[in-house]
C-alpha cells in the first residue's frame, strides 16, 4: 500500500490553495467545453443564423435612427450584434445551470459540495468558469460577424471584455439560482421557455426601445424592467468604447442579488434543496 500520508493538515487554506481550487473548477469547465463540441457549434450557429438570415430580412423593414452610442446611421446587422452577444451569454448561463441540475441528478454535484472550501467560493468559481467559456464563444462569434461585415471599432474586442465578464456573471448567476429551484431535468425545458424567450424578446436585443414604445407602452415598460436589456446596452456601449452608467449599475446590482440568492439556495442550512422536502439531492 502506498505512503499517502495521514498527517493532519494545517487549519485553513492558503491563497495558493484557493487558486488551485479555482483553476481546477475552470479546467473542468474547459474540458467539458472541449469534449462537447456540438455545444460550441450550436452556441455559434444560433446567433449566426439570426445575423445572416433574420438581420438580412429586417434590414429593409427596420430603420434604426441615430441613438447613442451610435453617431451615425447604422445597419441593422450592427444594431443587432450586441443583442446576439448577450443571447450567447444567456444561453450559456442557462446551459451551465442545466448542467448543474444534470450534475445534481447524476451525483457529480455532491463532489463539488463536499469540497472543504467555502460554498460561496465554489459557486463563484463555477460562475467564473462558465463566464469564461461564454466569452470564448462571444469572441468566436465576433470574429465571424466582423468577417460578415458588421462594422466594429478595431479595439471593440478589448473594450467589451469587462462588460462581457459582468453580463456573463449576471446570467450565470441567474441560471445557478434557477438550477437550485428546479428539482428535475424535465422541469427545465419549461423554464427555458419561460426565461430565455421572454428575456430575449422583451429587451432591446432586436429593436430599439423607442420603437417598442411607439407600438406598445406596456411592452416598453416590461423591456425597461428586464435586466437583460441593461446587459445588452452595457455591451452595446462598451463595444464602441463608451460607458452606459445606468446599465452598469443595474447589471452590477442584479448580478449581486442573483449571486447572493444562488449562494443562499445552495447553503445546506437555508438551502431550498431541503426546504422542498425531498429526499437527499
Amino acid at each position, binding site marked *: 500500500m502506498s505512503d*499517502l500520508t495521514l498527517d493532519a493538515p494545517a487549519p485553513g487554506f492558503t491563497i495558493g490553495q484557493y487558486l488551485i481550487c479555482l483553476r481546477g473548477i475552470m479546467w473542468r469547465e474547459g474540458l467539458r467545453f472541449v469534449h462537447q463540441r456540438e455545444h460550441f457549434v450550436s452556441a455559434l450557429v444560433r446567433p449566426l443564423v439570426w445575423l445572416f438570415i433574420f438581420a438580412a430580412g429586417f434590414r429593409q423593414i427596420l430603420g434604426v435612427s441615430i441613438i447613442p452610442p451610435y453617431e451615425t446611421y447604422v445597419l441593422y446587422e450592427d444594431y443587432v450584434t450586441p443583442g446576439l452577444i448577450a443571447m450567447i451569454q444567456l444561453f450559456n448561463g442557462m446551459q451551465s445551470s442545466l448542467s448543474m441540475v444534470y450534475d445534481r441528478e447524476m451525483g457529480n454535484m455532491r463532489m463539488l459540495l463536499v469540497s472543504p472550501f467555502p460554498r460561496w467560493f465554489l459557486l463563484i468559481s463555477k460562475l467564473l468558469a462558465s463566464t469564461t467559456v461564454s466569452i470564448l464563444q462571444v469572441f468566436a462569434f465576433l470574429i465571424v460577424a466582423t468577417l460578415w461585415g458588421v462594422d466594429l471599432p478595431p479595439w471593440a474586442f478589448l473594450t467589451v471584455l469587462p462588460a462581457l465578464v459582468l453580463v456573463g456573471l449576471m446570467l450565470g448567476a441567474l441560471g445557478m439560482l434557477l438550477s437550485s429551484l428546479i428539482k428535475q431535468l424535465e422541469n427545465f425545458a419549461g423554464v427555458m421557455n419561460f426565461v430565455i424567450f421572454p428575456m430575449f424578446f422583451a429587451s432591446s436585443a432586436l429593436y430599439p426601445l423607442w420603437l417598442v414604445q411607439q407600438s406598445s407602452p406596456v411592452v416598453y415598460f416590461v423591456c425597461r424592467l428586464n435586466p437583460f436589456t441593461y446587459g445588452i446596452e452595457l455591451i452595446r456601449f462598451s463595444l464602441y468604447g463608451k460607458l452606459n452608467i445606468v446599465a452598469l449599475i443595474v447589471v452590477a446590482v442584479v448580478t449581486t442579488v442573483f449571486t447572493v440568492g444562488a449562494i443562499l439556495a445552495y447553503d445546506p442550512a437555508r438551502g431550498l434543496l431541503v426546504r422542498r422536502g425531498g429526499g437527499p439531492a
Partner: protein
Amino acid sequence: MTAALSVEGVSHAYGTRRVLNDVSLTVPQGQFTAVLGLNGAGKTTLLSLITRLFDTQSGTISVLGYRIDRQPGEALRRLGVVFQARTLDMDLSVMENLLFHASLHGIGGREARRRATEALTDVDMADRARDKARNLSGGQMRRVEIARALLHAPRLLVLDEPTVGLDIASKLAIVTHVRALVRDRGVGVLWTTHLLDEIEPSDHLLVLHKGRSMARGIVSDVVATAGVDTLRAAFASLTEGAGEREAA
C-alpha cells in the same frame, strides 16, 4: 484519541416526515464501523448529514473533533466519501477525475498527479488512468471512487452501500481493500450496508431501523445481548421487535 467520527443525538425530518430519530454513533480511528439497516432505514440521510449536504437539524456531528456545522471546512478536509450513486464525471478520464478532486482539496500540480497515481496503484487501476470513466465496469468505477476519496489522505472514510450492484469478485476486492486501509493506515471507516456478510464479529455496529438506533456496540456483544447465535438472528429480533412495539 479523538474519534474519527462522532454523531450525537442526531434527528432529521423532511418536512413532517421524520427519518432519523436521536441517532448516536462513534467511529474510532483505525476501526471498521458498520451501519446496518434495511432500505429506508435512514442510512443515506445520515451520510448526507455527515457530509454536510444537509444541515444538522438537531444533535451534533464531529469529524476528528471538528464540528461539521461550526468548522465545515476543517471537518470536510479530514473526510473521504464514496456515495452510493456514481459520482465520477463520465466525460473525463480516470486521471482527470482524480486531479479535479485533488484541486477541490487545494492539491495541485505534481503533488496531485503523484497522489493520484499512488491511489490508483493501490486499487490496481493505474493502467486505466487515461480511460474515460464511462468505459469502466461498475466495480472499476467503485475502486476509482475509493482511490479518489483517499487522495487528500483523510482519517475518516465513509462509504454508502459501496458494494450494491457489484459482482462477487468486485465486491470482495473492495471489502478487502477497505479493511486493509483500516488495518494498515489506521483510517476510521463508516460503512453502511444491508448485507450481513460484509460485517465481521469484531466490527463496531449500529443497527438502524426506521430512523431509530436499535443496537450499538461491538458486533459480538450485540449478538450476545440479543441472546442469539448469529448477527442475522440478532438483526431479525431487533427489527421485528421494533415493528411489534410500533404496532402495539
